[in-house]
């Protein structure tokens, strides 16, 4: 079914090597819009994880029946159907979480990472591999957005975990810098997100190049890798 080496490779790719936000730089539009707080970033990532995993699994199961020349409309239809069903089920049975996530769920379909993984991975690999690929891409997005959202929230409003009470009522957000922190609007607005994201990409590149000591530029090699798999 799936070997341990395969699993390790899939998770290394999703979480670090081909991290959707830091290496493939896909789905930046929802990323910039949503990472104003740590909790928002985490919630969007979790909802996306669910969709990448489910859409990868279903496309992989159906891949033998999908003709090459009309694969795009069919992929879009499968992903959109899944997003809608997830949205409806959450609105009915998890209405508290849906109140918080409601605006993010339609955003998932605009995230290129969903189609990128369907096209580059699920259309060519087995259902179990594709399911785990979706999960690993989601985890990669999760940690990136948590760090980015946390930094923006901390610098922009001086808080952390604000909004957590709408998911777990017994917890509440932290005021890290006290009530007098004036806030830095720059980090709340999209330009601040762009600049922080650039720092995170730079840090990742520095770490990867030190680790593997490759002469190729890390972003280029990641891009080439992504193109190789999608070809």
């Amino acid at each position, binding site marked *: 079914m799936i070997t341990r080496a395969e699993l390790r490779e899939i998770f290394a790719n999703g979480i670090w090597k081909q991290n959707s936000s830091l290496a493939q730089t896909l789905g930046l539009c929802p990323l910039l819009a949503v990472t*104003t*707080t740590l909790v928002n970033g985490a919630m969007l990532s979790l909802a996306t994880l669910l969709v990448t995993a489910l859409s990868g699994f279903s496309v992989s199961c159906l891949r033998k*029946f*999908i*003709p*090459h*020349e*009309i694969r795009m*409309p*069919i992929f879009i*239809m*499968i992903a*959109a*159907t899944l997003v*809608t*069903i997830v949205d*409806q*089920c959450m*609105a*009915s*049975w998890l*209405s508290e979480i849906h*109140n918080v996530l409601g*605006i993010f769920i339609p955003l998932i379909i605009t995230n290129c990472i969903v189609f990128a993984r369907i096209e580059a991975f699920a259309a*060519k690999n087995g259902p179990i591999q594709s399911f785990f690929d979706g999960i690993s891409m989601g985890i990669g997005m999760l940690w990136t957005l948590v760090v980015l959202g946390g930094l923006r929230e901390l610098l*922009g*409003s001086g808080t952390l975990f604000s909004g957590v009470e709408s998911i777990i009522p017994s917890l509440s957000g932290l005021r890290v810098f006290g*009530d007098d922190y004036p*806030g830095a*609007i720059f980090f*709340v*607005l999209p330009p601040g997100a762009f600049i922080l994201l650039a720092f995170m990409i730079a840090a990742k590149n520095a770490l990867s190049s030190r680790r593997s000591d490759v002469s190729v530029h890390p972003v280029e090699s990641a891009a080439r890798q992504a193109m190789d798999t999608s*070809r």
Partner: protein
Amino acid sequence: MIPAENEVARALATPSDIPVRVALRSAVILAIFTAISTLLLAVSHTLTRPVMEASLRAKRMRAIEEILPHGIYDNDLVSDVLRLDADPSSALNVPSVFYRGRRNGAPAVLVVETSARGGYGGPIGLLIGIRADGTLLGVRVTEHRETPGLGDYIDPKKDKNRKNPWIAQFGGLSFGARPESEWKVRKDGGSFDFIAGATVSPRAIVRAVRDTLKFVAERHETLYGVPEKDPVTALSHSSQGDTP
């Protein structure tokens, strides 16, 4: 898996090169996928709709209870509803829903579900509670897309001033309590506070609250009196007499 060469050629071919047989096969497969998706969505919609409506109703009820003191009405408020479409000739030019609270059958309170135009991120959904004597019980933002950390202080949950949030300044006011020219934020020469750097959102809300109060003050009796049956037409007929 690399697609076979003939497949690549087929994908690159101009439409006239594709054999009718292949095009027809694609069409049929696409139609089958569409039919299955539609079926799945229809099933999930049918299964989830009743549950979704019940939870929406409960959510609305919770928001209403937040601004109304306990025991101010004794009827089933969320069922005693009046819906109005946008009407350019009246003060309230947005589609609104009026929940009519009565106590022992007499008018007690109106809860207006309306929206403020001109928010920074689009319309701002509002819930406005008004006593039968015209005084405001409170205003709550139900839905907004104002800039997080900047304009979102209109929502008391996001307001940094926890003890005395911005939205609380509406409590106890009525349309007659302040001259119409003062229903503006201070920056525009009115008497309402705002937080420097974010004027757009409070400006939109002050205007919407003013318009709603004015509308309610003008046709108070009509709003409570219209029977639920076909309320929209009933109101427009009776209001023709009020405003010559």
